[in-house]
Structures are given as C-alpha cells and as structure tokens.
C-alpha cells in the first residue's frame, strides 16, 4: 500500500463525506463520483470495489420498494387512517395514538420514508378537517417511523445494513430490538401528548365531519390490495425463515417483488420507475467509498485507536457507540455514518475476538433513534418537513429541536438501561 494511495483515499473520502453532509450537492452524485475517483486513483481496484458493494442490501431495498410501490396504489393507508379516525370518533389524542401505531407498524415492515409519504398527506387531510395544528401528529409520526424502523431487519436502511453486515436475522431483530422499541415508543408518544396537551381542542361539528368519511371509498382496488397484503406477509414470513431456507434477505424480497408483479399485472415500467434508484446508487457509491478506506487500512488503524481508548471493554465500547451514534445521527445522515461504523466495529470485534453483539445493537439503536433528534436527522424527517411546507406549515430547525432532542435523549437513556440490564 503506497502512502500516496493512503492519503488520496482519506482525502477523497473526507471530501465526499463533507459534500454529502453539506447537502449542497445531491448525495448520490457525490457518492458515485467519490467511488469512481477511488478507482481512478487506484486506491481500490474496480474488482475489489464491486466486491465491497453489499448487493444483499441493494437487493433487499429494491425488492421492498417494488412491493411498497404496488401496495401504495391500493389506498390502504387512507383506508386505515379514515377507519382509525372514525374509531377514535374524531378525538385528536386517540387519532394521534392510532396514527403513530399505523406509522410504527408500517415503518417496521416497509421503509421509513415510504411510510411517511403515505401517512403524512392523510394526516394533513384529517387535521385540516378537524381544524387543528398538524404538528403534534407529524412529530409523533416522524418519531414512530424512526423508532420502529429499528425494530426489524427491514425497517430502516441502518437496520438493513447492520443486518447485512452481521448476518443477524429478521428474528434476531425482533427478539432484541422490538421489546425496547415498544417501550420507547410508548414513552415518546405519551410525552408528545403531554407536551401538546393544549393543542387538541376540536369542535363537535368537525368531529362529526370525520365520522361522515367513508373508509371503503379509499380502497381503489380491493383485489390488488388482497394480493399485495398476501405477498407482503408471505415476504415477511420468508424473512423469518430465511436462515432455514439458507437464503439471504435480498432473495426473499426480490422473490416477493417479482411474485407480486406477476399476480398483480401491474405495469412493470411504472413500478420500476418509482423505485428510488438515487438511493440505490447512493448506497453503491457509499459502499465503495467506505470499502476503499478499509482496503487502505484506515479502518483497522481507527479501530486500534478506539480499542486503546476503551481498553477493549465491550461495555464501554457499546455505550460509547450508542451515545456517539445518537448525537452524530441527529446532525448527520445516518446512512453514511452507519456505513463507516460497520467495518470499524467489525475490525474491533476481530481484533478482540469478543462478543460484539451489544455493540451492534447499540449502533442500531443509536443510529435510528438519533435520527429523531433534529429535523435533518433522518430522511423521514426531511421529507415530512417538505410535505408540511408545501401545505403552508413551517417546522423550523430550532422549533423541532426544542421538542425532539430531549425526547431523543430520553430514548437513548432507555436504550442505555436496556443494554446494561440485558447485554452488559
């Protein structure tokens, strides 16, 4: 390894990372450009670069995006939102709780951004009808999406990446993350209800208008809905038995996606057009960027430094990773952060030979929950703000921070207690 390659590698990585974080340029373009520079400057060969790309993660993302893009067309979310609003009899506190549950469950099974894109417009219509400020609902939904995104293997990009790197199964995530995320979401929603307790006054006539909605009208294609739900649950079941079948999650997801394309007779061009290819290419570029750092030995150097700070203690490492991930993920995009942390934690685990399971769960929790800290902390937050602003509602950085950052800290405290009680 030439010193020149080492320096160039670090320089390209740093500049790419800064450009991604600054958001001055599209992050996908930066990641791909940075990746190609790594190859051009021979920091990494093209062969090795392609080997660094986790195609399981990409396949899983593409497969789930296809399934979600078909489900989206059925009106399922509108149906659920109207039904639960009616069950709540227009009571805004109950609506907030029910919508948070819908968001959480969806986010655990679909991806966070898609869940937000589906639930926020419906929430705006409901809050518009009730003539109340949508902000408490949107904040609850953002937080629920990020919290339960950590609960399953497929719930969020950090979970997908960590699952891919560690081999932890769908069942492993359920056993280790679902319980604590359930506690965290209950506490978080309760606190949101308390913080906004004065914001839930609704006139009786507006509640009655909600009751006049017909949820059945929201379903655009009941046949397609049934097929979509069948395939979705089959795919989820496939994730739980993936280890038994000796296949990886991407195979399960792409099987589900192709099966649904066949039985739904959906137009493949239209469905594939809506796959977020910029996200896929972003991941690809990122894997090469981080993989290049690995190949020049920077990651193992960094891991040795960290081990010397923590004295190799898994407990200290886990807690450090949890809190560092939470704070950094609040302000930085958690996907490149997790992409960089994965080889680092792997390297530390290989060096010590210890059981680094607590550290992996700490990284999952920190990266996902940290995203709740600021309005830029996660893609779901940014998208929510975008939709709100298009509808004339402003969420300022400070306004969100004052409410969300303390709630995020509470969730990390709960995560710390969880780690200490069960893993350390």
């Amino acid at each position, binding site marked *: 390894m030439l010193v020149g390659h080492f320096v160039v590698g670090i320089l390209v990585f740093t500049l790419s990372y800064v450009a991604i974080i600054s958001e001055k340029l599209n992050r996908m373009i930066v990641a791909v450009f940075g990746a190609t520079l790594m190859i051009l400057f021979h920091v990494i060969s093209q062969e090795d670069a392609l080997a660094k790309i986790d195609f399981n993660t990409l396949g899983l993302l593409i497969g789930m995006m296809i399934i979600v893009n078909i489900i989206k067309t059925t009106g399922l979310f509108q149906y659920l939102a109207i039904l639960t609003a009616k069950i709540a009899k227009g009571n805004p506190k109950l609506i907030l709780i029910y919508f948070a549950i819908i968001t959480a469950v969806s986010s655990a099974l679909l991806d966070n951004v898609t869940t937000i894109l*589906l639930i926020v417009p419906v929430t705006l*219509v409901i809050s518009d009808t009730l003539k109340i400020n949508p902000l408490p609902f949107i904040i609850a939904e953002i937080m629920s999406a990020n919290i339960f995104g950590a609960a399953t293997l497929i719930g969020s990009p950090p979970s997908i990446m960590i699952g891919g790197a560690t081999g932890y199964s769908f069942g492993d995530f359920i056993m280790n993350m679902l319980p604590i995320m359930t506690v965290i979401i209950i506490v978080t929603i309760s606190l949101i209800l308390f913080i906004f307790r004065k914001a839930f006054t609704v006139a009786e006539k507006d509640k009655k208008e909600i009751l006049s909605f017909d949820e059945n009208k*929201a379903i655009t294609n009941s046949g397609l809905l049934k097929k979509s739900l069948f395939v979705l649950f089959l795919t989820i079941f496939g994730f739980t038995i993936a280890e038994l079948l000796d296949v990886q999650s991407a195979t399960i997801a792409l099987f589900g996606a192709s099966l649904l394309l066949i039985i739904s007779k959906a137009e493949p061009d239209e469905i594939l057009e809506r796959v977020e290819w910029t996200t896929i290419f972003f991941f690809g570029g990122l894997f090469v960027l981080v993989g290049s750092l690995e190949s020049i030995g920077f990651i193992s150097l960094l891991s040795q430094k960290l081990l010397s700070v923590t004295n190799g203690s898994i407990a200290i490492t886990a807690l450090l990773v949890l809190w560092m991930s939470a704070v950094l993920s609040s302000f930085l995009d958690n996907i490149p952060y997790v992409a960089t942390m994965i080889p680092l934690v792997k390297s530390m685990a290989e060096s010590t030979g210890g059981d680094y399971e607590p550290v992996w769960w700490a990284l999952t929790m920190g990266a996902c929950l940290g995203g709740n800290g600021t309005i830029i902390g996660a893609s779901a937050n940014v998208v929510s703000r975008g939709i709100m602003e298009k509808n004339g509602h402003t969420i300022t950085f400070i306004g969100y921070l004052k409410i969300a950052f303390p709630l995020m800290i509470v969730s990390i405290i709960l995560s710390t207690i969880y780690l200490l009680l069960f893993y350390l």
Partner: protein
Amino acid sequence: MSKYVHTETKQHTMKLVQMGAKVEVISSQMVYVSFDITEDFTVSYVYNINRHNKYFLERIEPYPIDLEEFDSTDDIVNIIKIDVEQFKTAVKSHNIKDFVKINQDFHNTILAFEDLFLYYNLPTKYVSKIKGNIEAINDIIKKASHESKRVYFGKEPGHLEE
C-alpha cells in the same frame, strides 16, 4: 420533487373521493408549446400524453379552446400545425385585435352565463332571450361566411353551418 407531487395528489384525491367523486390518477407527461407569430402575438398550447395512449390538447393563448381528446400524436401535431398556419394568416388582417377581443368576450360571456345559471334561479323569459340572441349571432356568422372571401384552404371549417 416527484415524491412531493405524489403526496399532493394523495391529499386532493382523498378529499375528492370523500366528496363522492370517482378519481383516476394517470401518470402522464404534460407538454407546453408556444409559437411567437409576431412580436406581440403568441399562440400557445398544452397537451397531455398518458399511458392509455390518449392525448388531451388545449389551446391557452390567445384565447382558450375546448379540451379535446385525440388518439395519436399525429393528430395533435396536425391540429397545432393547422391552427398556427391559420393564425399566421389571420394576424395579417387589420381586424385581428377585434377578432381576439371578440373571442375573449365570448369566453367571458360563457363564464358570466354559467354564473347566472349556477347562482340564480333563471326565469324562462331570460333563457328564451339568450337563446334568441345566440341564434341571431349564429345567423350573422353564417351570413358573413357566405359574403366573405375565403383565405384558408388547408382544411375545411369544422363548425360553420352551410
């Protein structure tokens, strides 16, 4: 950008469906076309192509024409081509400004009539009077077409009675 467009659509369609509408959202491409016939005379159109291979065309300047559905892009291009040729001829007339004004006045009259009908309970005598006046205008148009020199032969008129 497109994800925000989709979310806007979801909100509108949800409200419209709850109002009782049947709504179909079709992915399509919208195309704006404009021609500067002279420095101060522009003819512009908007047309929409969707995956059902249906094309919707509307002229928006100098005055709107009805939205029509066509089966092929050739139809759209031909309609626009003929329309532009006709306007290039028409713009040479010393009556062009009156022509545009009259069309705009017709358009405004239709809107006013619509308001009248939708906001008020119109007595039959006014309905008869308005009908009579429209017939009178049609008679003038028919008579004028017989007494005026024809200047465009690219296609036959589609709405003039013989």
